[in-house]
Structure formats: C-alpha cells, structure tokens
C-alpha cells in the first residue's frame, strides 16, 4: 500500500504544537513571580468584573495619575467577565497567580479571605495620606467612607477583621419606564406608600389582561429579585432581630441569628418571619412567572423591551440601563410598609438606614502580592477624596467617600443614612451557603402562583436547622483556622517584643492581635457550646 505524502508529519506536527504550548505556558508560569518588577518598576495589578466602559476609563485614568505620582510603579487593570469571575479568582488564588488587588464579591467567603487575603484592620485606623490638605487629613481611613466600612464586603464580623475597601456605595432602587408610566398613570408621581406600590402592580396586571399585551409589573430574575425581596423581608424582622440580641449590641450578627434559631428564640412560626415570607410572596407575584430561573440579563431584556414597567436593581446598573433603553428612565425608592400598616406595621422599628451595608466594588489585597504596602497605597489613592471624586465623575457611580459630590444622575441613589438597623433577611444575614442554598432552592414554592407560604415552610422548615448547623460548623472551622494562622504571627511578634521591649508600635500591634484572638476564641467556644447544647433538642 502506498503511503499518503505528509501522513507521517501530521502526528509530529501535533506533538510539536503541544510542546510549543507547554513551553509557552511554562515560561508564563515561571515568569509570573518575577513579572512584578518591570524594568525596575513595581507592577501592581488589580482585577474586577465591572466591564462598563465608564468605570474602566475612570480606573484607567486613576491608574495613570498614580503612575505620574510614582514613576517607579506601573498599574495594570485586569477585566474579567462576571460570568467567569468566580472561577477565575479561585483558579488564580489556588494557582498562586492572583493579582495584587481583587474585587471582592459575595462568593468570597470567610475561609477564602483568611487564606488568601491580607486583613487591613490596622491600616484603616490610620489616616489616608492622600487626603492630606483636606478636612479628612487626620481622620482614620475607616471614617472617610460613607458606610464607615461596615458593609459585609469590608468588615467580616465572624473574623473580626476588615478586608475590603469599597470604591462606591451600592443602594437599591426601582427603575421604571417613564414613557409607559405616563401612558398608564398620566402625571401621577411614583408610589409614596407600600399600598400605592401594590396598586401600581395591580394596575399593570389589569392593563395586560385588558389589552392582551405581554406586560408585567416588575422584571425579575434570580439575581435582582432577592435584593428587592430581602429589603422587604428585613423590614419585617427588625423587631424580631432586636429580641434575639443576647449581647445587647442592638445589631446581632448572623451567628447570633443562627444560634437564636437553634435556641428557639425565633422559628419558622414566628409571626414576624411569617409576615416576612408573606411580603416576599406578595411582591414575587408581581414578577414574571419563573423569574427565579432567569439571570440578570434576561430581566434587563424584559425591561429594555418595554415588557415590564419596573425593574429593581442597584446604583451599579444606572450606566448600563441608560445606555440600553430607548425610553425615558425614572428611579424611585420602593416604599416599605410603615408603622400604620394593618399587618406589617407591627414588625417595624422604622425606616431602615442604608449607612452600614452598602459599600460596593470593594478591593481586597491578596497575600500573594509581591508588594502589599504598594498595593495598599494604591488603594488609598483610589479612595482618597480626590481619587474617589474622579472615579464617581468619570464612572457615573456613587462615591464611597464622604462629601464627594456625585453626578446628578446618581443622586436618587444617595444612601439614606438616618434610620434603624434592618433585620435579617432570607439569607439569614448571609449566615452561610447551606441555609442560603436551602432558601433559594424553594424560593419558587414561595413566590409562584401555585405556591404559598405554607407550602414553602413545609419544604424548608424540616431542613432549616440542619442547614443552619452546617453553616455554624463552617464558621467554627474558619475561626479555628484563623486563630491557628494568627498564632504564628502572634508568636513572632512576642519574640520580637522580648528583644525590643521599648517598641511601642509593636506593643500596640500585640495588644490588638491579642484582643482579636481572644474574641475569636471566645466566639468559637460559644458556638461550640451552643451547637452541642442544642444538638439533642
């Protein structure tokens, strides 16, 4: 049999291609550790998922400004699509190839933080040097932020440490199609009470039925519906949360909420929790059927096509919506039930404050950074008053720093700072993945027309205690790991202290670390005790 010309070369070509790919990859991996220095310049890389052009340009402008101030530094911006961001971050962190700064999302749990990120608790207590010459010059960095770094992306109550520094404030509002609104309601203003809001939803449903038009009150999805629903639910648990407050701090943590459930301080049959579920169902029914299977982009499509009057989302979506829709865009704050409401009023303390939980686009410093101090310095530059003003002006987002004037378009999103702490929501104030997953898994039973509060409880209640136990077990493990990890630093500091007993700065650091360690150990002991005590009940 005659051989086909070139047939023997094909496998060789494949092998050569494979070898070339391997060589390039190996070279990249080998160079990675050394790439932090680029012809004598330190390279600081930051990664995030905000692909909107305004934001990208704003961060790019700030990076160039920083380079002009520090000619020995080069700043690189890495843009990663949101859909692949979680996998990208995990791969990079585990592979040891993470950027110096990484945008923190809700999926970055305590375990990941303690393992891969540097706490900035000491740093946030000192003034930001880039605020020199302003009235924030002597103010601790923490107090230069509108939310005082109280948001979950900044401060981790279970770890008692700060990790994330926010660039923006995120608040949630209702966007609406003003053109469609005028056709339905004339010149009527947006609803001022919760009842008015429900009437608006009802009117849209009636119009859809009358005209046969595919029109829904609110475009929902599994991404944006929960942020709306949770706001309403947390209004209903305000008083209940205070009643669980054994520690008398007026704002019990997610661990307290979880342990409170195990202690039977509250339960699925608590009237406030039932009202929370009822209100969740009430608004869930105003979204399109099956919304909990859809993603944010699908809901945005409904809204931008004029098939939904309203969509709930955060201030982060304003530039996106403005560039997408061809109708006049309106924004209003969803009115929550007030104290006079016949059913829901009894559970309220009052209008919730947005001061403590809205920091957005927060960056954390990775332990893999070759120059942690430089990365922190760049973060301080980004969140100085002038840096944050540039970010807000060019990016079209709310500023995170106090007394920075936002662009007019984002003013409706300015956080309401006066108010009462919200209660816990359906994530049990982000207690952990297991309880959150359980609630999400049966969300449709709660909010679809064929479902009900009773059916939802029938599914969730038998499994909730076990999910809460799993989450508390995870908190236990994280605390234990964190304490062991810090023990090494602690021992080193004590040894150095013995050599230099007059070093006051080190003494202060030891004192602070001792305090954190002892608090974490006390919390660990309490969780362990309560898990054991309630196990047989």
């Amino acid at each position, binding site marked *: 049999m005659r051989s086909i010309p070139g047939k023997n070369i094909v496998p060789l070509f494949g092998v050569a291609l494979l070898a070339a790919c391997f060589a390039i990859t190996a070279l990249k991996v080998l160079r990675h550790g050394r790439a932090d220095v680029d012809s004598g310049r330190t390279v600081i890389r930051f990664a995030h998922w905000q692909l909107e052009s305004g934001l990208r340009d704003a961060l790019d402008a700030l990076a160039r400004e920083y380079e002009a101030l520090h000619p020995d530094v080069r700043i690189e911006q890495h843009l990663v699509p949101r859909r692949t961001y979680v996998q990208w971050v995990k791969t990079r962190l585990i592979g040891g190839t993470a950027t110096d700064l990484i945008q923190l999302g809700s999926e970055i749990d305590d375990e990941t933080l303690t393992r891969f990120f540097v706490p900035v608790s000491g740093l946030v207590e000192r003034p930001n040097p880039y605020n020199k010459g302003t009235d924030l010059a002597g103010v601790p960095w923490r*107090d230069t932020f509108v939310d005082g770094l109280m948001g979950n992306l900044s401060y981790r109550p279970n770890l008692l440490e700060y990790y994330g520094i926010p660039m923006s404030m995120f608040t949630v509002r209702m966007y609406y199609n003003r053109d469609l609104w005028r056709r339905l309601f004339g010149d009527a203003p947006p609803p001022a009470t919760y009842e008015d809001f429900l009437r608006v939803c009802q009117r849209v449903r009636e119009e859809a039925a009358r005209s046969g038009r595919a029109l829904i009150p609110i475009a929902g999805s599994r991404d944006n519906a929960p942020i709306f629903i949770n706001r309403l639910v947390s209004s209903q648990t305000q008083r209940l949360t205070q009643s669980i407050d*054994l520690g*008398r701090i007026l704002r019990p943590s997610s661990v307290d909420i979880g342990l409170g459930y195990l202690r039977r301080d509250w339960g699925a049959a608590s009237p406030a929790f039932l009202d929370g579920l009822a209100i969740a169902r009430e608004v869930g029914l105003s979204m399109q059927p099956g919304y909990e299977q859809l993603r944010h982009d699908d809901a945005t499509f409904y809204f931008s096509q004029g098939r939904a009057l309203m969509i709930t989302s955060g201030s982060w979506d304003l530039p996106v919506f403005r560039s997408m829709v061809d109708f006049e865009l309106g924004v209003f704050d969803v009115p929550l039930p007030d104290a006079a409401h016949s059913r829901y009023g009894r559970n309220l*303390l009052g209008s919730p404050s947005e*001061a*403590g939980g809205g920091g957005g686009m927060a960056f954390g410093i990775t332990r893999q950074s070759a120059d942690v101090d430089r990365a922190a310095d760049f973060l301080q530059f980004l969140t100085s008053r002038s840096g944050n003003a540039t970010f807000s002006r060019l990016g079209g987002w709310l500023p995170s720093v106090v007394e920075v004037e936002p662009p007019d378009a984002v003013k409706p999103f300015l956080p309401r700072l*006066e*108010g009462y702490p919200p209660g816990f929501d359906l994530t049990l104030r982000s207690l952990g993945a297991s309880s959150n997953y359980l609630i999400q898994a049966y969300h449709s039973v709660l909010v679809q027309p064929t479902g009900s509060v009773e059916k939802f409880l029938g599914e969730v209640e038998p499994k909730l205690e076990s999910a809460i136990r799993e989450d508390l077990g995870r908190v236990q493990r994280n605390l234990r790991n964190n304490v062991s990890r810090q023990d090494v630093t602690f021992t080193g500091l004590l040894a150095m202290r013995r050599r230099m007993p007059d070093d006051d700065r080190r003494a202060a650091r030891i004192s602070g670390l001792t*305090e954190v360690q002892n*608090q974490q150990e006390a919390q660990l002991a309490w969780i362990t005790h309560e898990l054991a005590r309630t196990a047989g009940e």
Partner: protein
Amino acid sequence: MTRDLPDAAARRDLHLVLGEAVLRFELEPTLALDQFVAALEDGIVMPLLRADILVRVGELAREAGRVELARRSYRTFLADFPRAPRRLMIREALDALTDGSA
C-alpha cells in the same frame, strides 16, 4: 482575679470574656456591666468592638438605672462613631434618658 493581672491587655480581654459569658448565659446583667466598664478603662483596640461595648454599657446601665453612666457611654459612642448605623437608636435612647430625668 483580674486585678492581679499586671498586663492591661490581658486584663481587658479577661473582662470582655467574663462580661460576654454573663450575658450569653443570661446571668445577672449588672455583673456584665462592671466587666465591660473595666474593659473600656483598660483600652479596647478594635474600633468596632469598642463601639459594641459602648452600646452594651449604655444599654446595661440604662436597664440598671445608672443613668449617668448610660448617658456617658451613649455620648461617647455618638462622638466616636459618626457613621455607625445604630446612631438613631442610640440618640433616641439618650433622648429618652434626658427626658426621663428632666
């Protein structure tokens, strides 16, 4: 026992743990109040912990009828934590104490 500890940080941490234990095990709350007051005097480093302890001292002192201590603690909280989300509740508690004693 705490008085015998020469190190202020160790004393502070012991006060904090004892106070916490009193509250968690639902013992006599005034016992916890004294522990937290002593911890504040020894110097709490973490600002958020200090904020929590100031709130606690205010609440416990109010419950115990120690109005001046409650007022002092609430006022320190308001002065030192200008961005805390609990400010409105603390201000209301402080106003109630002021109205009540007026």
